[in-house]
């Protein structure tokens, strides 16, 4: 024992525990996010619970099991639950153990009951002890809707245009509703939005002319004419939109909820109907993949707590791309300076310290700087110079995707510099000497020899910068991200890329839905799914960057030999 202690082995093991702990933390975290995130898409079994309530009546509830927990008896003793007295007496007799009530725990399950229009709460706790019967009837339908969340119940009848039709018509009618919804969306998002955009542009044009005193009779007339045409178009589109909407309201479905109440649901609101308890594993996998695809490609509903995250993905990607365009040249040039041109003097040391500090300054400070300098100062000046007609409504003088990209470019600059410089350092100096000896200038050597060889290192730097930028939220909260953006920063209206617009971001989406939404409990699975998406993107980027770097190292090792 003493020799064991003297060998220092216990300390070695304790330090090994640090590694184990870190590994558990990383892998556990990834596993947690992955399991919670993926289960969001998996179609869950739906149960019917018959239970006795506080008054001793039997009631039934339909829903998915969401969570289980053990509650100490002491915490619920004051509730005076009817089933407790009989049950605890039973268990004591049965087991013969003398458990005091204080040490006993009760199991209770959290059930997602949906049906938001019937009950205020999406969830309810049931004590395992109070449940009389738990069954999973095959005919329970899970109805995913545009509003009010999911509905669990039994389908009684389908009403089409006032007539009751057969249940087998369901897929057909659903397809029809989906088709019509798509038309509505196309009209709203496409034509009507375009007309509105044109009208606004016309108004600004008119105001600009007015401010410059260049608005004469002719142009005024021209503008009025254009406006009349646009407004006519608008009315026409609106009319067709209304007619489609009317057609949508034709069909209803009659369903019975768990407590026996019959509810009529419009087909217009229904997205999908599944019988989860009838699904085979293969069906479930199919549904799982479909839900996953919908999540990535669809737009959010119900204040982001349902639906997909497409605008957030799009916003993140666009902002990161803009940032890459800005940061790459600067980062590479700075790295080349530091490695190829700078002498070994104090000034270089100062620049290196500046690089480290740029990497170490808290991201929120960049946000503050970006808001003050880019948004209010630069953006405000741009507005005064070029967009005077829209004032006091700011164009660039308000947070937007361009300012976010610029701010994050400063933030990720050191990432690119450090990675590129490391790549440059690995290039054997024999290559430089060879090139210079053959008469090339330093610039030519750089351009034709060094940069092509260093390009994978530059790639690595850029990928790492992208990964860093994709996960950064704090500065974006100040310089451009919003909860719900009415339109994407890239669309079919000239000039197509709207740099002044605000955008949605995956990271902010997590913060917003997880902490600012009214129904956090219901939104939590979606947050896990979003988190999973973000983590997988970032981990993939990092793994890719590391892989490129490792390949590069191997290559240089070969060059040196």
């Amino acid at each position, binding site marked *: *024992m003493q020799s064991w202690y003297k*060998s220092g*082995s*216990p300390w*070695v093991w*304790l330090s*090994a*525990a*640090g*590694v*184990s702990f*870190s590994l*558990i*933390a*990383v892998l556990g*975290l990834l596993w*947690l996010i992955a399991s919670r995130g993926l289960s969001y898409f998996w179609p869950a079994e739906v149960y019917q619970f018959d239970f006795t309530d506080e008054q001793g009546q039997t009631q039934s509830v339909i829903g998915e099991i969401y969570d289980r927990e*053990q509650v100490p008896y*002491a*915490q619920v003793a004051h509730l005076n639950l009817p089933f407790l007295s009989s049950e605890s007496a039973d268990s004591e007799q049965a087991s013969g153990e003398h458990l005091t009530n204080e*040490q006993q725990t009760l199991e209770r399950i959290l059930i997602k009951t949906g049906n938001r229009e019937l009950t205020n709460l999406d969830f309810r706790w049931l004590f395992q002890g109070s449940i009389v019967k738990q069954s999973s009837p095959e005919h329970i339908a899970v109805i995913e809707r545009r509003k009010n969340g999911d509905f669990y119940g039994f389908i009684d009848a389908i009403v089409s245009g006032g007539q009751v039709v057969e249940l087998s018509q369901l897929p057909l009618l659903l397809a029809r509703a989906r088709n019509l919804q798509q038309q509505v969306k196309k009209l709203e998002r496409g034509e009507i939005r375009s007309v509105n955009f044109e009208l606004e542009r016309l108004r600004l044009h008119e105001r600009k002319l007015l401010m410059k005193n260049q608005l004469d009779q002719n142009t005024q007339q021209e503008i009025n004419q254009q406006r009349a045409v646009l407004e006519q178009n608008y009315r026409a589109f609106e009319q067709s939109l209304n007619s489609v909407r009317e057609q949508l309201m034709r069909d209803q479905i009659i369903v019975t909820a768990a407590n026996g109440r019959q509810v009529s649901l419009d087909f217009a609101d229904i997205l999908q109907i599944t019988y989860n308890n009838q699904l085979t594993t293969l069906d479930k996998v199919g549904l799982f993949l479909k839900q996953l695809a919908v999540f990535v490609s669809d737009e959010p509903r119900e204040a982001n707590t349902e639906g997909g995250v497409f605008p957030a993905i799009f916003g993140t990607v666009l902002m990161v791309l803009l940032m890459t365009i800005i940061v790459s040249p*600067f980062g590479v*040039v700075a790295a*080349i300076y530091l490695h190829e*041109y700078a002498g070994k003097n104090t000034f270089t040391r100062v620049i*290196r*310290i*500046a690089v*480290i*500090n*740029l990497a*170490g*300054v*808290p*991201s*929120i*400070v960049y946000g*503050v*700087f970006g808001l*003050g300098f880019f948004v209010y100062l630069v953006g405000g000046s741009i507005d005064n110079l070029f967009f005077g007609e829209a004032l006091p409504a700011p164009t660039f003088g308000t947070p937007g995707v361009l300012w976010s990209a610029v701010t994050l470019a*400063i933030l990720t600059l050191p990432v690119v510099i450090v990675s590129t410089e490391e790549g440059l350092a690995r290039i054997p100096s024999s290559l430089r000497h060879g090139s210079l000896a053959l008469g090339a200038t330093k*610039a030519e050597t750089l*351009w034709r020899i060094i940069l092509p060889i260093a390009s994978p290192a530059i790639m690595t730097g850029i990928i790492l910068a992208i990964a860093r930028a994709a*996960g950064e*939220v*704090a500065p974006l*909260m*100040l310089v451009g991200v919003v909860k719900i953006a009415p339109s994407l920063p890239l669309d079919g209206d000239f000039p197509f890329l709207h740099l002044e617009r605000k955008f949605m971001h995956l*990271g902010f989406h997590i*913060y917003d839905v*997880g*902490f600012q939404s009214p129904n956090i409990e219901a939104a939590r699975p979606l*947050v896990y799914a979003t*988190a999973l998406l*973000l*983590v997988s993107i*970032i*981990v993939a980027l*990092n793994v890719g960057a*590391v892989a490129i770097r490792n390949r590069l190292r191997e290559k240089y090792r070969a060059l040196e030999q």
Partner: protein
Amino acid sequence: MTLRSGSAKSRLLKNKLARYFITLGGVGVLFTLVFIFLYLLYVIKPIFDDVEVDALASILVNNDSTSQVNHTNSSIAFIGLDEYQQVAYQVRQNGQIDFYQLVDSDFHRSGTNILSSSLAGNEPLAVNNNPVVDIVRSANNKFALLNSDGQVNLVDVKFISRYLADSQEIQPRLDYPIGKQGFDLVPNQAKVELFSYATEQGRSRFVTLTSDKRLVVTTISKKQKQKQKQKQKQPAAGITALNIRYHELAKEVNADQLLITPDLSLAIVRDHNLVSVYRLNDLAERRQMLNESSESNTASILSSENSAAVELSADIERYNREFLHSQFQPFSSLTDKANISAMSLLSGSSSILFGSSKGEVSQWFEVMTSRGRVFKEIRQFDVGDNAIVAIYPELFRKSFFTLDSEQDLGIFYTTSEADLWRGKVAQQTSLAIAISPRADALLVSELSEQGGSQLTLFSVDNQHPEITWRALWQRVWYEDYPEPAYVWQSSSGSDEFEAKFSLVPISFGTIKAAFYAMIFAIPIAITAAIYTAYFMPSKLRRKVKPTIEMMEALPTVILGFLAGLWLAPIIEQYLAAVLLLLIILPITVLLVAFGWHKLPKDWKLMLPESWSPLILIPFIILVSVFAFKFSSTFEAWFFAGDMRLYVTEYLGIDYDQRNALVIGIAMGFAVIPTIFSIAEDAIFSVPKHLTSGALALGATPWQTLITVVLLTASPGIFSAIMMGLGRAVGETMIVLMATGNTPILDWNMLQGMRTLAANIAIEMPESEVGSSHYRVLFLAAFVLFVFTFIFNTLAELIRQRLRDKYSSL
């Protein structure tokens, strides 16, 4: 190739240009950092700027022969100006009001008399045909006129602004909120000696001292329309129906000055040096409680009628005690006794300011003590040696202006105890001073040499009086607080809100969060770094190191989300298990180590010691599962069944679900990879010949590590910790999501905090550009910048030196 590159000259030129361009890019990095630093400073600087007062315009009035009325027989009582500093007015003792254009505009030359009128109405200078004998102005610049018959009327001076093309015209207007007729200020035609007036949201209140030394409160409010209909007594058009109530506060009162707070809740009566405060805010209720049976003394009249039957006999003595709230004598503690020479109310209805004949200003407000609410002297301002003649408070902020007997003006701010400006604004005797509604200008009226008077407009550049070094970093006694405190509370619904900008609680929160994160992270990160760099076989190291470093790439928003919504509830429920793990995890590790030591040789070969991190993983998981499983049992044994309850009730510690423990763990995770990565590099690059030498001399690997490796690498480890600290201090999302964000000063591990970074993220989007709040948030960002700059620079310098040392070894 050479052909395409052009002539030798152009190639050299290109080479040169490339050199310049690249150098520019390199220096640009330094420039960026310096620029951010300078820009933050540029935004912060105005809060520490000195106040500036400059004369803008000056006009001579009253020597104009075209003026319709000869006013020389009546002196100036009040002056005022509109919020755009275009039009000034002066009010004479007899009720005459004259408006003058202050600066040239498209409509009027400066000095033009825009409008002359009587406050009481167009022609006669009277209320109901009796001459005006006294005028009182409320804190929000509304006038009450008293005529020789004891009747009062109310007048508001309003400015209507009209925009035409590029210019703006300000038109003055007189408004009569209760119509043009008056009402009795006190019942029974009693003579009025002194009175004061305040109005708020359609309700007005007067405190009057009658010549028979009674103190009477008069409250008027417009009648509800519904009640009128019920009574079926429609008043004639143009006459407003009023509710008038009279209350007698006290008898046998002497007074030099009366004041009433703008929220109508307190009446302040000064008799030489004795100040009495009467409570008015529940007059009606108290009256009913005291004397339910007696006849109501509230008179509901049409204001056109002058007959208000009021009975005020009962329980006067008891009223005296009920209404009189407190009495005190400011400046009585001074050795050479000074007299009160001026009294004024600070904006916000809480504080009273007293000026003394010896040149001090003293601020008093109510403070909650064990004996109830008591008026206390909060702070004194030393203005000079001359007596204070008048104190002028600003309308919304806690600034005040003092004027002493030598015509010296002083500008002060109470909360920050800032002595902002001293100087003279009048050559001659100044007659009156007015502060513009936005507090950005000052109007001074003085006698001019040509006879008549001169109005001078001064611009006052006093943007951020509430921020001083003292207000930011020291204890400040705020209104309604029992004692001086460090408080951060930047906004509220009210205009007169006293902003509390103490950076202490949020800086403290930052340090607290970083402290708990470091306590969690340092042991794990450093031990992991030691093992990975020194003991781990390189094959395993190549896998383990990137895996741990992967954690650094995890977005902090995800860590924050998990900490707030997953970890915090778990810790709340299994607090006992978490504490238990702290003890049993190290014990488990040692037991496993000892168990491995006792294993037979063959087994040891199969499971070499270098695999210990992997061997430990299942044991750690198992023990953790065990701890959580038996958490409730453990709680039942030691903590009476519910640890949370035990902590709050028996130990008296407050428990927040999102607390420093959660932050410690979550932010610890965020910092571990930073510390691990740098420390591991430092230990790994310790030259091999040093360790080989130690091992050759017979030291065990552990001894070699402690005595040689760690000693050599210690600067690197220190620099790693510095870097980690820098990251923990500036981390935003985790703290934002996993704490309650309450700015409190408490080291308690089970309570939350608010950090500088989270504070910026929460409040920046809502702060108004250029406001004090905006600049203080920039200051917070600057503090963060400087903090992390110091940590990072220190760490980098140490690393650079260490690198040189290694290469020389």
